[in-house]
């Protein structure tokens, strides 16, 4: 990805703390609602899933698609957002 969104920068800039799942890049209102329905209400829960999949891009993308129906761009945004967050804070 050549450029990153504002949301991505904001998320990657600091520890996620208790941020909502919608603070993740690529996760907007609709996907956020769907994720919350499945119990992924906080960003760190998604991070947990991300980590339990060993940061594997393919699996995480698949999971995101299955869970909330994210499209390819949303999957990529969310994945790179979490990966960069892990690179700097994990």
């Amino acid at each position, binding site marked *: 990805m050549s450029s990153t969104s504002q949301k991505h920068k904001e998320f990657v800039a600091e520890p996620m703390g208790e941020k909502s799942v919608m603070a993740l890049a690529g996760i907007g209102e609709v996907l956020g609602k769907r994720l919350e329905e499945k119990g992924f209400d906080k960003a760190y829960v998604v991070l947990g*899933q991300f980590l*339990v*999949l*060993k940061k*594997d891009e*393919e*699996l995480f993308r*698949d*999971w995101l698609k*299955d869970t909330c129906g994210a499209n390819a761009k949303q999957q990529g945004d969310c994945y790179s957002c979490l990966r960069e967050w892990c690179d700097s804070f994990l």
Partner: protein
Amino acid sequence: MPSFVEDPAQLSKRRLRSELAAHSVPLPAADSGKEAYVELYRRHVAARSGADFSSDEDEGRGQAGGSGEEASIRDEGQKTELEVMDVSQLTDVELKARLLQYGVNVGPIVASTRTLYEKKLRILLKPVSQPPLNGAGYAAQYSDVEDEDEDDDDDDEERDYGSVHAGGHLEADEEQDQEGHNQVGLRFQGDARYYPQCFLPSSGMLESRSPDISKVATGTKVGVNSEMPLGPSSQMDLMKDKNATRKSPAFSPKPSVFRPQFKEPVSDILMEMFPGTEPTPTGISATCRRPIKGAAGRPVQFKYPDTPSSPGTKERRELQRHLVPTWIQMLVFLLVAFLFYLIFSAMQGVPDSPSAVLLHRSGHEGELLGDLSSFATSEDPPLVSGEE
């Protein structure tokens, strides 16, 4: 495909075992009892054979059976996706072991990740006979098969081809002679279209194709035979068909029965020519473009003299290089510097002596003056002053 519905409990253990193996069901441990076999048989083979009878397609057999079975086993919401049964039946440890066999970096298999790993294993288990560019993933958007109307054309062509072949088989009247010519033409074209097989001698393809041809040929041969006695109208039809056939080999790269089989070797050849390239959805693999010399980068044309093209330029350049080597330059510089130093020192030495001479002379003059003054005091003072 078992075409019987038997009570598996009445089958022998060995029979159960072979049946399970035939359905590629992982066999239980060797020391497990018959119950385990019966259970597996009930679960896999029976369910699958049931699906056999219900489903139209052969390919969807395993998946259909799996979904039916899975619906009863799993109460999760993901019933839309079809699951192959033996994958969903695996325990976490088995699943992990299977994935490790395929070189997958397996993480913890827990409730939230299990579906993903199952899906992954299912994808891996799927035979990779078909390259992904024609995979089912694109089927919704792009299809390999032609549209319906073109399919009709295909059918026509098929019939033509068949009739032509039939003519070759009959070899009776003079009409058939013409058809024989057609057949030659078609054969020719056929050869041209099998051309890629020169590179790819896959006997399997040939074998798989030839029965098709003969089937078509014999099939329409019967049809022609039965049509022949019907009268002039059917013969007219035949003529029309022939005309169509005569036109097609020359001009159109016509769609025909063999197209689907024909596509495969082409892509294979591409793969053969460019190994290591991943198959792309378009089937065209593009490598990174290298700059063409002098085309886009204008300055390149001034680089041509750089290349040692002729021995003359090379010599000249060497001459230039060896004309004044660096050490000679240094030597010359040092020589010149030394020369300058000599000159300078000589120049410094020269004024010393004149001044000394001058001093010397002035000393003499002093003496002279003294003499003169003594002389002048004795004789004539204005003379002395005039001399001074």
